[in-house]
């Protein structure tokens, strides 16, 4: 006797689930047991399952669980049915079997008792006659092959007469009927393949173990392929299904092939992938290209994972000879290429290398279908997402405020060196000498922006407001669940006085830190407070590496960040370390990675500790007399910051939120961070340093603790009456801050030292005539003009690129010589300068007449030009070119080492197979609250 247990796995599939369940329950051969699994649906799928199978037969799984995991969970709990041949019938929520499907399947099973896995013929859900698959096989490229033409209608042409069964390598997991003893023997579907190709992998193993896998053509099921066609959002992974499919295809292939065959296949697939990537790029499908690369990369870069999978499949490789004949013939590959060429020529759909999940792919139908969906259409989802809307809005605000900064000549001013040069200049600078590491970061970004450094800098600096808004919105996903609160929080964060001040004064260092700060907060939360039991270690460890890497980036731009994070980390370690094992180690990773990545540079800072207070770009001091009330209202002062009342609303709401008793622990932590931040800002400010970074920290703490209480406002609103009015008032006050900040910013036109159309400091003649190793001395009246002081810098044959300003100073001898030259005292000053490689002296307007006279009267110098805008003099004597820095072997090795370290940290930080995140806020168990600050 057979005993069939139908397992229906649902995930946001209520659209199809009703029909599916009806079909399952209406089988002519009734199922013996029915179990529903709900993978954290949000559309009532759970209730539907409950109605169909009874409340107790529904298993609730987290939203991030995969299909295989869900089935495993059910099978684990399923009591054995003694005496019977037990079968497991896997049903997707979007797969409705025909009424007689089970009957035919069991009939075939009776007929061929050695069969372990059976599957129905699959047809399309909407176009009911459209054939999807009749068993599948795999190509050597890992491609899933159905052996069908595109859009083939089922007229019985593939039905295997007379008995209605076909021997196949695999059948789809939609409607798959599995003998339970075989399931147990083989260990079932591989839970490491949460979504795609788990069926192929399982059937391969079944085949290799000597079982038969049959496609029963008489049994029919209609399948909507909701996940692979993106008709619903996948929660088990953040990646595009195409990339997942490709990745898992390769993985399954590599895991099951014998070693030498696998190696050969690996090589073949790597080369093939690269070729395909190029083809995709040529065909202007960059997304596909990225997916292709990411898929092969994820297989290549995780050899350990592959090894584990292979270890588990030792037995299956032994039976390779049984599987080999089932592979798709090589001729099929040529057919695919031909189809691809045809497609390209006819302007058809995109190339596809993963192999369609099924035979049909209808781009047109896909689009039309999407709109029917409630929250999942791509375009709609994009523009319906509050995050995207916020980003668009903030971008509009930024464009309106920065209207004078968007176009025109060179961008520069404040702390920003006029942005000149391209990615190659930055690379040359970084690899040529001991340059500050942020140059490398900017070089990478400039490379991404096709070598245009100005574009990269503009995006970071001028786009600071929308980017930080976006990062704040996305990064808080894991701990603020109430969306309007997240929107408010992100908008307020993005428009903080720090942000507008950053833009106005061109502080690219603070801009980068400001954008990254929410990400730090999110990663740090994962490191400290991840409570997920299963994957806790790995997720937290990865987060720690990621935090370390990003911290290194931020530290390179503004070293003070590291000090601040280290202090907070230490406090956190003291309060969490005793509670959770591993936190200490992860914190050590997060704080140690920047030390490792920035080693020699940090050593130079330790030698000159004042530089901790400096940030990327030109040194720019700030008044040490910042008012205490400005510090408390998170206003760092300086150009571009609004009056201090602009942020008063934020402070009022934050204090008000304290009265709501909710998340008290996190609120306390948030306020702790805020107060430590303001205190640090006070210290830093009194040292004539702009307190942007610590104030951004303080604001983050304040915003998080406020946003966590925000859902109470919604409750108030529902309550009506006086409370409703109160809620309205709170919202008004809360939103007053970002609205006022945006308005003031737009009215202020982001005015500050940062401007467009900065003149190149190097006269064209000097640029054209400087020989290598020669420099141009640029002398300018010091700020505040009338004091008569002069400042100078030396330019080397071109407008300096970002970071060159941090070169070692020329020293007091040189300064004395410049002063002597400027005084016109004669003597050997000019010769001294010429001996240090100075070939030109440039003085931009306004030219002090005394200085002009001095330069004119210097016998070893000749005037080249003198106009209202600038004067240029040339050394007539011999100019000794500065010796190019000796080829520093230690520097070269360090560059290699640094590159290798970055790659290693990237790999360690890269999300593994399971990147899913629980979106629900993690409540911290009550027991931990005793360690409150």
């Amino acid at each position, binding site marked *: 006797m057979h005993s069939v247990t139908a397992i229906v796995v649902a995930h946001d599939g209520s659209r199809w689930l009703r029909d599916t369940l009806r079909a399952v329950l209406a089988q002519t051969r009734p199922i013996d047991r029915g179990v529903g699994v709900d993978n954290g649906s949000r559309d009532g799928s759970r209730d539907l399952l409950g109605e169909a199978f009874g409340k107790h037969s529904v298993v609730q799984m987290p939203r991030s669980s995969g299909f295989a995991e869900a089935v495993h969970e059910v099978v684990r709990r399923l009591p054995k049915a003694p005496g019977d041949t037990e079968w497991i019938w896997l049903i997707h929520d979007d797969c409705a079997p025909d009424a007689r499907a089970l009957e035919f399947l069991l009939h075939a099973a009776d007929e061929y008792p050695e069969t372990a896995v059976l599957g129905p013929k699959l047809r399309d859900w909407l176009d009911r006659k459209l054939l999807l698959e009749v068993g599948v096989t795999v190509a050597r490229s890992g491609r899933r092959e159905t052996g069908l033409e595109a859009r083939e209608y089922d007229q019985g042409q593939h039905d295997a007469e007379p008995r209605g069964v076909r021997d196949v390598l695999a059948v789809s997991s939609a409607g798959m009927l599995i003998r339970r003893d075989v399931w147990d023997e083989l260990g079932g579907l591989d839970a490491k393949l949460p979504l795609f190709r788990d069926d192929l992998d399982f059937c391969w193993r079944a085949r290799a173990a000597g079982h038969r896998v049959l496609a029963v053509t008489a049994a029919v099921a209609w399948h909507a392929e909701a996940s692979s066609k993106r008709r619903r959002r996948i929660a088990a992974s953040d990646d595009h299904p195409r990339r997942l499919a490709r990745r898992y295809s390769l993985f399954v292939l590599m895991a099951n092939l014998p070693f030498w065959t696998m190696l050969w296949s690996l090589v073949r697939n790597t080369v093939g992938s690269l070729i395909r990537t190029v083809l995709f790029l040529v065909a202007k499908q960059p997304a596909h290209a990225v997916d292709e690369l990411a898929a092969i990369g994820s297989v290549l870069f995780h050899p350990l994972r592959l090894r584990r999978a292979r270890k588990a499949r030792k037995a299956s490789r032994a039976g390779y000879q049984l599987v080999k004949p089932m592979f798709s013939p090589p001729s099929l590959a040529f057919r695919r290429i031909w189809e691809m060429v045809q497609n390209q020529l006819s302007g058809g759909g995109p190339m596809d290398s993963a192999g369609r999940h099924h035979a049909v792919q209808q781009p047109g139908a896909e689009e039309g279908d999407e709109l029917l969906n409630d929250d999942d259409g791509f375009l709609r989802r994009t523009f319906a997402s509050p995050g995207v809307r916020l980003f668009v809005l903030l971008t509009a605000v930024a464009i309106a405020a920065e209207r004078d900064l968007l176009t025109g000549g060179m961008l*520069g*001013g*404040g702390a920003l060196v*006029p942005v000149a040069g391209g990615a190659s200049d930055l690379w040359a600078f970084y690899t040529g000498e001991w340059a500050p590491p942020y140059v490398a970061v900017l070089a990478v970004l400039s490379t991404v922006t096709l070598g245009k450094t100005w574009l990269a800098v503009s995006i970071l600096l001028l786009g600071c407001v929308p980017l930080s808004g976006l990062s704040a919105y996305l990064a808080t996903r894991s701990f603020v669940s109430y969306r309007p609160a997240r929107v408010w929080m992100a908008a307020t964060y993005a428009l903080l006085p720090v942000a507008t001040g950053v833009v106005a004064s061109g502080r690219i260092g603070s801009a980068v830190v400001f954008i990254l700060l929410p990400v730090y907060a999110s990663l740090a939360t994962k490191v400290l407070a991840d409570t997920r039991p299963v994957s806790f270690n790995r997720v937290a460890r990865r987060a720690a590496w990621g935090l370390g890497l990003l911290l290194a980036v931020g530290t390179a731009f503004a070293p003070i960040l590291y000090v601040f994070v280290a202090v907070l980390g230490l406090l956190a370690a003291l309060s969490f370390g005793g509670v959770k094992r591993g936190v200490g180690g992860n914190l050590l990773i997060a704080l140690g990675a920047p030390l490792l990545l920035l080693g020699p540079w940090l050593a130079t800072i330790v030698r000159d500790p004042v530089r901790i207070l400096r940030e990327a770009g*030109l*040194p*720019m001091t700030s008044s*040490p*007399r910042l*008012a*205490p*009330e400005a*510090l*408390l209202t998170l206003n760092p002062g300086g150009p571009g910051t609004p009056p201090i009342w602009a942020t008063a609303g934020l402070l009022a709401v934050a204090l008000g939120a*304290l*009265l*709501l008793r909710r998340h*008290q622990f996190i609120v*306390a932590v948030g*306020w702790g961070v805020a*107060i430590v931040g*303001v*205190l640090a800002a*006070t210290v830093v400010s009194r040292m004539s340093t702009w307190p942007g970074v610590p104030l951004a920290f303080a604001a983050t703490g304040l915003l998080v603790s406020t946003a966590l209480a925000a859902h109470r406002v919604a409750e108030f609103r529902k309550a009506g009456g006086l409370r409703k009015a109160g809620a309205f008032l709170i919202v008004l006050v809360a939103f007053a801050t970002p609205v006022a900040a945006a308005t003031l910013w737009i009215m202020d036109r982001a005015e500050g*030292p940062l401007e467009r159309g900065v003149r190149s*400091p190097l006269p064209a003649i000097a640029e054209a005539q400087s020989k290598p190793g020669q420099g141009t001395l*640029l*002398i300018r009246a*010091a*700020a*505040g*003009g009338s*004091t*008569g*002081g*002069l*400042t*100078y*810098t030396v330019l080397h044959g071109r407008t300096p690129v970002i970071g060159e300003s941090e070169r070692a100073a020329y020293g007091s001898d040189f*300064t004395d010589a*410049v*002063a*002597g030259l*400027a*005084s016109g*005292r*004669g*003597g*050997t*000053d000019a010769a001294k300068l010429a001996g240090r490689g100075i070939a030109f002296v440039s003085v931009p307007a306004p030219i002090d007449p*005394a200085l002009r*006279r001095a330069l*004119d*009267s210097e016998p070893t110098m*000749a005037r*080249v030009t*003198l106009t209202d805008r600038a004067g240029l003099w040339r050394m*007539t004597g011999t100019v000794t070119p500065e010796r190019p820095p000796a080829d520093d072997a230690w520097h070269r090795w360090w560059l290699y080492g640094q590159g290798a370290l970055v790659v290693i940290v990237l790999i360690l930080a890269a999300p593994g197979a399971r990147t899913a995140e629980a979106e629900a806020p993690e409540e911290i168990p009550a027991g931990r609250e*005793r360690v*409150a600050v």
Partner: protein
Amino acid sequence: MRRLIENRFGMLALVLIALGAVYGVAFVSRPAPVAPVKAEPVRAPIAAVSTVCPDPGGATVTAVTPPNAEGGGQTLIEDGDEPATVDEPGKLWQKTMASGTDPMRVHATGAMAAGLEAAQTRRALTGAARGLAGVRCVDPGADAWFVGPGPAAGDLKLHLANVESAPADVALVVYSGEGQVIADRASGMLLKPGEHRVVDLKKVAPSPLVMALNVSTGRGRVAAAVEAATPEGVDWLPQTTQPAERVVVPGVPGSAGRRELYVAAPGESDAVVHVKAVLKDGSYALENRETVEVPAGSVVTLDLSTGVTGQPAAIVLTSETPVVAGLKIVGTGGRTDVAFTAGAPSIDLGSVVADARSTKDVTSRLILSAPDKAADVTVTLLPREGKAPEPIEVAIPAARTKEIILKGPAKGFSVVVTPKTGSGPVYGGRVMEERAAGGQLVTAQPLAVARTWTLVPPVAEEPSAVLSQPS
């Protein structure tokens, strides 16, 4: 603690206390406002000086370095084939050159450079060049201004010498009473290193009766001096200050004779120039000559004889457009001689006059003016022979001019004028007069800033110099 945190008011109170504490810290640590420290320039001795006596032939050349700086040094006087060296500060070197001598370069380094001064004085009792004609040996420069009579009023010769190692590209701009003179031959003069040349200004611009001359170089440097031989007498035109909105023409002697002021407005717009004379007893606007209007690009003369003759004076000109100015001093007698003074800077760092004499016939006057604030100066004489007399302290009340008749050894001496610290700006000139048969001989030289000291501005290496500073 935990209970406090879980109580809503407890938490609020905690936070408020913490905020208050932070406010307190910020309030207490806020530093008092500090006035920005004004970095004062530092005085430093000049380390090398190079100066050119434009036409020493037949003239007496004097070179001196006052004893200022410590250490060694050397002055090299390139006197044709027999260069002389001096390495003793305070010692006068004086020699009368044979006629036809080329321009002479006087070059000093080290301690001898600090204050080096050289001048040439020619004395002729007969002939067309009758008169005293003196000029301070000039520094090579890129820009020089002269104001005085024009080529139509006499022979005007521009002496150019390039003593540098780079070629100089010289351009002349002549402004006349009728406006700027467009001249073909005014530009494109190239002087090779070591080359010197005398340009007859008549060939450049024959018509101006009065002129302002700007000698500038596109590249390189040149030593420029203008010799004027007019029917009234001969002398050199001293270099005047660059066009400025305030010009002080010092050194008008208290002797008799005509005084004529030249004012030029080389800019693009007309100038209304206010004229004031700083006299012995105060500073006055001259009656009916309170202002003078100078059309753009032209030169105007103003007879000041009735106002200042017989009184030592300095003329202060103020205008909203930059002007240059000079003054002609005409000696008395049947055959007159002229002398010229011109706009000069204040001698904040001191001044040296190389050549002065005091005999029965020759009077040397030092005219010092303090147009703004009271000034105190020390006047020291450096005699050619013999012991130096005691320094003289001179106090000049605000807006007054003082004339000092210099009494020194007959063989000649140099004069060092040093303002005391805290003194107001001082302007001055030295005038030498000689009673001679037929008429008085006269020459004048406005005091120039001594090459003793220079102000070394505070300089800092700052990468932000690449950006234009907001003023």
